[in-house]
């Protein structure tokens, strides 16, 4: 873990000083703002709302508007991580300093996660808006956020891995989107396939059903195990790839 803290700070610095983080946050909030106001309009026209199918559930994964931005913006947050260091050559000064590869990879990933959390933070206001019009179970809101946090961690870990696989940020973005969209498409299999092991597999991978659970306040350990795996494996692979550069 040596070198984690300075690299983490510099990574956040770079993310917010080059306007990348701001651009991504603004795009995300504009989309979520529209998403939320559409939902409010929809529910306002409904005579009554079922308890586990209200605006909070719809917001946390009831519509495609949650997933589409995440599929694209998460790889955007991580595309710089290693690709930019390698393109500009700064990876050489970075790796000749007394830092550990694990520290380096974790710092870059956690900086992206931090930005991701900052990106979601203003949406707490939406919950405050719902709170004004009726009852709001903050525990359910909490599990909703836990769900998007898990999804974010895994997407960002995958993005970090893709960034370590190429020198081009654009390529890292495209590869990252391929992986996240690929996972999403596998998840759709749950809705189209007949019963069987294939459907079970798709359901396990599906980000839709994960968010469906979390948005209703159900914390399923299998989901958490899946997210943890999808975070740890790519990060481990990234550490190995970065180590392997020394032998290239």
């Amino acid at each position, binding site marked *: 873990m040596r070198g984690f803290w*300075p690299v983490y700070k510099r990574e956040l610095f770079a993310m917010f000083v080059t306007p990348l983080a701001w651009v991504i946050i603004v795009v995300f909030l504009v989309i979520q703002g529209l998403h939320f106001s559409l939902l409010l309009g929809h529910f306002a026209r409904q005579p009554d709302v079922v308890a586990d199918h209200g605006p909070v559930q719809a917001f946390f994964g009831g519509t495609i508007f949650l997933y589409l931005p995440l599929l694209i913006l998460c790889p955007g947050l991580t595309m710089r991580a290693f690709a930019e260091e390698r393109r*500009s*050559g700064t990876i050489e000064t970075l790796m*000749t300093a*007394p830092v550990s590869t694990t520290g380096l990879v974790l710092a870059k990933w956690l900086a992206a996660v931090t930005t991701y959390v900052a990106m979601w933070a203003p949406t707490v206001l939406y919950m405050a808006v719902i709170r004004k019009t009726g009852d709001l179970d903050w525990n359910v809101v909490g599990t909703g956020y836990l769900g998007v946090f898990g999804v974010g961690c895994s997407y960002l870990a995958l993005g970090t891995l893709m960034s370590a696989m190429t020198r081009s940020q654009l390529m890292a973005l495209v590869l990252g989107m391929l992986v996240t969209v690929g996972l999403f498409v596998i998840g759709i299999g749950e809705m189209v396939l007949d019963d069987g092991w294939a459907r079970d597999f798709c359901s396990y991978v599906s980000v839709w059903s994960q968010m469906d659970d979390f948005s209703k306040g159900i914390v399923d350990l299998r989901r958490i195990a899946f997210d943890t795996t999808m975070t740890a494996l790519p990060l481990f692979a990234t550490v190995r790839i970065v180590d392997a550069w*020394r032998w290239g």
Partner: protein
Amino acid sequence: MAMLLGIPRKCLESKLLRRLALPVAWASVAVVIEVSHLTKAYGAFYAVNDVSFQVGKGEVVGFLGPNGAGKSTTLRILAGFLGMTSGKVVIAGHDIAEDSFEARRQLGYMPEAVPLYGEMRVIEYLKFRAELKGVPRRERRARVEQAMAEARVDDLAETLIHKLSKGYKQRVGLADALVARPPILILDEPTAGLDPNQIREVRELIRGLGERHTILLSTHILPEVEATCGRAVVIARGKVVGEGTLEELRSRRRSSRARLLLRPAEGAEIGTLRTWIEKNFSVRSVNVSEQEGLWGCEVQWEKKVEDPGAALEELVRGLVGAGYGVREATPAKATLDEVFAQLTDDTAKLEDGVEGGAG
């Protein structure tokens, strides 16, 4: 290595080994960089091939070689950026394969292209680097300021790095190498791409740093070595082809020359003098020309002449005996350029010969 390269190269090896067996003035000094049998292979291509050398504490050593000789690869391995295929590198007592962290802590490394984060200010960058290199928080500010002063970028502390000129970027790179006060500096082509004034400044800086640090710097420009280094390791095609102090390297010229200024003997002609010298002394070539009533005479000794000084003495005695007046006699020292060309060229010829013989 002979096994890897095939038997015919043994002759090459023995020659190289003889060259390495130079009198070593640094034997008594503590060795801080020890490279033994370092090899880096990319498939069948050997970027660095069985390179061994040592750098003693406090030395400023030039790592000299033509482009593509393996200088940067070697330095990158030393700095811990690249792994080696085989061999051993010990930095200040730490094996870089086993104790990479401690080895890296002893080093300040400046890569050839001086990569920097353009979006940071100079002072921000150096603070980041100081923290990364483990400089304690309370010392960080002072160290950064000192490094900026030493590299003379203190008036640019608040400038964004991407706005700096090449020369200033080079200095920021140098300040980065200095910021953790490492005992050893490894500088890869520190003056590449600078204008003559900047080159002079950077060399002065390096000379100043040489008083407190051990420095290994690579270059393909000879005057650089003469201006800054006490010793040089010459590398060509991934192999060490020569090593020693500048004097030792100069003295390793294979053919040497001498210039004489003569007052002609009575009735002598230029042509007869030339043939007389060629007949009576072991010279390869003689060149006599008239210079304002005197004769300038340039001789090149034969290869077998072992002591050019004695040969010159003999020639002067002979000329005086024949009635010439010797006004000047200057043994011409081979320039480092000649030695360099000879050393690097030799390897090429040898390898060509070996390959021809093997085929």
